[in-house]
């Protein structure tokens, strides 16, 4: 493997890292968060 292809490989990895980090993956639904808070509180009461 020559130096050119080595450099290209490393740049590619950095670009993949940047691409993954720049993505938007959203957030959990509010109803899901509300359910979990209620469930956690109920489990406290049960225990």
């Amino acid at each position: 493997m020559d130096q050119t292809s080595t450099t290209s490989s490393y740049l590619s990895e950095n670009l993949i890292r940047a691409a993954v980090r720049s993505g938007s993956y959203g957030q959990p639904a509010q109803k899901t968060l509300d359910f979990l808070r209620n469930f956690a509180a109920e489990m406290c009461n049960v225990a």
Partner: protein
Amino acid sequence: MQNLIQLTDDQLVALYSNGNTKAFDTLLSRYQDKLYSYIKFVVRNRDLADDIFQDTFVKAIVTLQKGSYTSTGKFGAWLTRIAHNLIIDYFRQDKNENTVSNDAQEYDLLNDASLAEANVEDTMINEQTLRDVRRLVDALPDNQREVVFMRYYQDLSFKEIADITGVSINTALGRMRYALINIRKMSVDNGIALSLAV
């Protein structure tokens, strides 16, 4: 809540186990985005991601209230491991991770920390290229895409990735290696330049 934010995960776990629901709310707030991003990245479906996210925390809540959780200072990794196992349950079929043969190309992509850790934040990068690369990553087999996300988005070590996904470090490294090879192959096949804009 102000004070709770400053507590460690294990301190919050202890408080919640003793009935402090605000402590749980703090843990949920601390990890909801990171965990959801991981799940959504892997399953690529919002409804399914919500279901798995909810099931992950339900399992965590039950475990905490049963007193079965062992504090190790790695609460986030523990949550991710639960999510990983639930994802595996949903996608039980073992997809072939070797889209490209092991000996097709011999790139040594993982052994130069100085270049791998180079700061790309300050580098001008073409947005279209980033979108193209994300599409390539999205096309990877599930287990390779998962490792890429854990490594590049969550900044986990390969030891942590191996622990969470229940494989050896060599397997985790191998999946990353195949992922990079596959991305490079797909970029060539689709005429996408894997280079930083200057």
